[in-house]
């Protein structure tokens, strides 16, 4: 086994893998020593990192893999390519009316030909849910954690115990270097230079005739802070998969209607929905005569149920908690619950009717009874008669093959109610009576034929429009709750903070020492050499040493 001697000339014992002595900064690795002219590799100040361990075991190898920036860049590039592939054709999630894989396959084939078929077969039509794309994101997350840990700890150690007097090679092999004859009064010049540094907000340390100055160290933590932000962001997105944290449902409300938001103790009322369009005068020439919506507005009230909430036999007690005009871009929000304007329907809909029960033989009228279409009561009293609601159908669609009535949808397009009527001259178990509130349905489905046992005796009849209540509009609201959102925003905020301090401020350090009448000065920054050079030139000129910006440049020429 090769034994690596990591003890420096200065006597400091460094961990294996150290590039520059932790104490004096002397280069320790052979290939760096042999090229004395080239600038030093100053990453993490030459500290050993866990990932550089020799004789790695399996954990070390995994650690090494994820701690590599090269791997991280590959992960980023692969994610980028995957994301781009997903935009060639629309993703499956954009089609709400298609369900099965077969339907999707046919759709892509029909719409985009053979290419579409291949696209679907490769799974590119659902890239963002695919195992490999999610896997890439998870790997990026892992890489973020390991890369940060691997670097931040050594860097923290290096920066928290810095030596003022550095090895001469360490100074002369920085990217910004000055060497020249020492000024006449060494100490007086040092004082002057220190003043110039302090004016530029440097912190200055001195050790005999050696000097070190540093500023904006915090900017070095920028990358790690932004990585923490990203980790929080990615975890929050994973957290959105927790069902209890997430709610996404739609409620359609008629004007004046109140409904419970399913699985919550909240109720929402739509007082009135309005839609406005731009008038012709407001439209430019090319759009005149077109319908361009200006505003969708649902005047909504949110209630919280405070008592009798889970007891269906009692009327729940509702307390108003918020009143809000829900518009596009102005959802109603209350304690993490958000209600968005999603859609509307301006076909008039029946809300309730108040028919009377007519005794056809005598012409006597009983009632009226109040029948709510969506939320009917179970029993009704009309004179000597009792009506019990046996069944209701919102969108009556005739009878199935076994003679059972059925509903086509939950929308009250063609409501039908089946009552059991009991009373004088009727059988003890009552008689079945089917009732269609809409006149057109009455004829269409043949109400009188269906009610043949009662057709000559009794009839439910609405007398006059004042007994009919109609809603002009229905508003569909999207109800959402997403408990992970605060974490998403926190993560994004931390990321941005880290990026800003990492990119808008630069960590700058300057070292100098005197050897045999020669002043050697080296300066290092993690970013923006140009700014450092200019600043250093100004400070040196102020202290009495004339120097041009170009002369300070010790970089290899970029090609």
């Amino acid at each position, binding site marked *: 086994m090769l034994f690596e001697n990591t003890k420096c000339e200065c006597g400091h014992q460094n961990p294996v893998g150290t590039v520059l002595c932790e104490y004096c900064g002397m280069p320790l690795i052979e290939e760096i020593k042999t090229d004395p002219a080239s600038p030093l590799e100053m*990453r993490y100040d030459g500290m050993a990192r866990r990932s550089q361990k020799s004789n790695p075991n399996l954990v070390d190898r995994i650690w090494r893999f994820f701690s590599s*920036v090269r791997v*991280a*860049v590959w992960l*980023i*590039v692969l*994610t*980028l390519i995957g*994301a*781009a592939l*997903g*935009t*060639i054709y*629309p*993703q499956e*999630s954009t089609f709400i009316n298609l369900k099965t894989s077969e339907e999707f396959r046919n759709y892509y084939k029909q*719409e*985009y*030909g053979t290419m579409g078929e291949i696209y679907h077969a490769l799974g590119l039509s659902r890239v*963002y849910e695919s195992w490999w794309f999610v896997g890439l994101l998870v790997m990026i997350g892992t890489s973020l954690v390991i890369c940060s840990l691997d670097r931040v700890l050594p860097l923290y150690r290096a920066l928290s115990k810095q030596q003022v007097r550095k090895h001469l090679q360490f100074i002369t092999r920085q990217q910004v270097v000055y060497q020249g004859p020492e000024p006449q009064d060494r100490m007086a010049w040092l004082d002057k230079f220190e003043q110039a540094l302090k004016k530029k907000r440097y912190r200055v340390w001195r050790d005999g005739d050696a000097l070190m100055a540093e500023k904006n160290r915090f900017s070095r933590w920028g990358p790690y802070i932004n990585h923490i932000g990203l980790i929080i962001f990615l975890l929050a997105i994973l957290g959105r998969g927790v069902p209890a944290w997430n709610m996404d449902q739609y409620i359609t409300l008629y004007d004046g209607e109140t409904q419970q938001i399913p699985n919550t103790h909240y109720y929402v009322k739509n007082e009135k929905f309005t839609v406005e369009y*731009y008038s012709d005068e407001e*439209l*430019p*020439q*090319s*759009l005149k005569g077109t319908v*361009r*919506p*200006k505003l*969708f507005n649902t005047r909504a009230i949110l209630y919280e149920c405070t008592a009798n909430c889970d007891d269906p036999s009692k009327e729940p007690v509702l307390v108003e908690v918020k009143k809000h005009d829900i*518009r*596009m*871009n*102005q*959802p109603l929000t209350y304690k993490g619950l*958000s209600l*968005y304007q*999603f859609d509307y329907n301006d076909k008039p809909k029946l809300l309730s009717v108040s028919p009377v029960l007519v005794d056809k033989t005598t012409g006597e009228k009983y009632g009226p009874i109040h029948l709510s279409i969506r939320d009917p009561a179970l029993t009704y009293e009309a004179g000597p008669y009792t009506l019990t609601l046996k069944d209701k159908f919102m969108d009556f669609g005739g009878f199935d093959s076994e003679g059972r009535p059925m509903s086509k949808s939950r929308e009250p397009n063609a409501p039908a109610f089946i009552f059991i009527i009991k009373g004088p001259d009727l059988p003890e178990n009552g008689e079945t009576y089917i009732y269609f509130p809409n006149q057109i349905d009455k004829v269409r489905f043949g109400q009188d034929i269906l009610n043949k046992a009662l057709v000559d005796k009794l009839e439910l009849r609405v007398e006059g429009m004042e007994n009919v209540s109609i809603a002009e509009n229905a508003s569909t609201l*999207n109800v*959402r709750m997403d408990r992970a*959102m605060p974490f*998403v*925003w926190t993560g*994004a*905020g931390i*990321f*941005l903070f880290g*990026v*800003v301090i990492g*990119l*808008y401020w630069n960590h700058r350090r300057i070292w100098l020492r005197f050897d045999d009448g020669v002043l050697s000065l080296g300066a290092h920054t*993690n*970013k*923006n*050499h*140009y700014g450092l050079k200019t600043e250093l030139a100004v400070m040196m000129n102020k202290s009495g040493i004339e120097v041009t910006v170009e002369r300070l*440049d010790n970089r290899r*020429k*970029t*090609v």
Partner: protein
Amino acid sequence: MNLYEFSQRALMTAMLVYSASFFIYMIALGGKKWSSRKSPERTQKWGWYGFAAAAVGLAAHVTFFVTRWMAAGHIPTSNMYEFMTMLAMAIMMAFIVIYLIYRNVLLGAFTLPLAVIIIAYASVFPSEIQPLIPSLNSNWLRLHVTTAALGEAFFAVGFTAALVQLLRVVDFTRTDKAGMRARRWVESFLLVILIVVGFLISVFSFRIAGYEVEYRQVKVSVDQFGQQTTTERLVTYNLPPIVKPHGGEIMAADTFLGTTDSLFEAPSWLKGVNADRKLNTILWSIISGLILYGLLRLIARKQLGAVIHPRLSDINPDDLDEISYRSIAIGYPLFTLGGLIFAMIWAQVAWSRFWGWDPKEVWALITWLFYTAYLHLRLSRGWIGAKSAWLAVVGFLVVLFTLIGVNLVIAGLHSYAGVS
């Protein structure tokens, strides 16, 4: 003259002053070579004149923006015309910031034409003020669009610096394989720029001439139940047809070179909204770009890169490298904030979800991932010089695709009307 007309004139003024500024910068640069006495003072003096002109142009541009805002009653960022003119304004702002840091004359000579080209491109779209639809009426959206544009503007300045850097470092005397490859890439990139210029020239010349040809296309399609449906589509070309719609018949046409015939017919597999007209426009752009390139080559009698290259010899490529990187480093947090974070907040408020994998969203993410990779490669893997410059150039192409390409090629929530 109403406010709208005034704002249009302000924009025209801005464009003319920008062009003047460009020429002044050319004089500042050219002076180095043309006059026998090489004088840095002279370059600097003309550089400042150019800068002053750019600042005056920007003032006119801001006037355009503010007066249009007043005329419309909402911030003018809601369609392609408004967005592109604002992007050009943001680029000029970013240019002024970077120019004040680095005082680099070359940057002016290359950024100003970029701003002019973008304004010209914006003018392809209808400029009339359109009232807002409800989903676009959001302060988060306004913040999103303006901040994202500012971030992209810094990427644009980073791109120009990188392009100059490439023209500066690519050796046009090299004849070995790698050298030839680098020369070819730079040259093809210049050709791409000329194709964009060719697109603008052809669109505007035929618009001034008032050229129009209208086609009727009848499509018969059979659905899964075997039912035949016939749809009729009318399409108007404003450029002479090189390629006509598949099975299209002429309804009304102006003549071009004495004929109304087209050379080709669009293939039947070409799908998408007005794909045939877009193909025709692209062909026109490429042909006029090639003609332009050919003419310039005839005049110069060498590769265009080789013409520009020697004029840049005074500049230190390391400085350009630094400018390009610095500009991107300034733009990155702005883009993250505007292009992603504000965008997510707006999406959350407007569409009830902060992320929906809409193509425009995905491409904003791709742009961000690209510049993230750029920063990692540069800061941690030591990619500096030409490598990093190529990335900065490609990065801006990704930005342009996100801004324009997605709307032209991929449909989604962000597609705008009036795309040629």
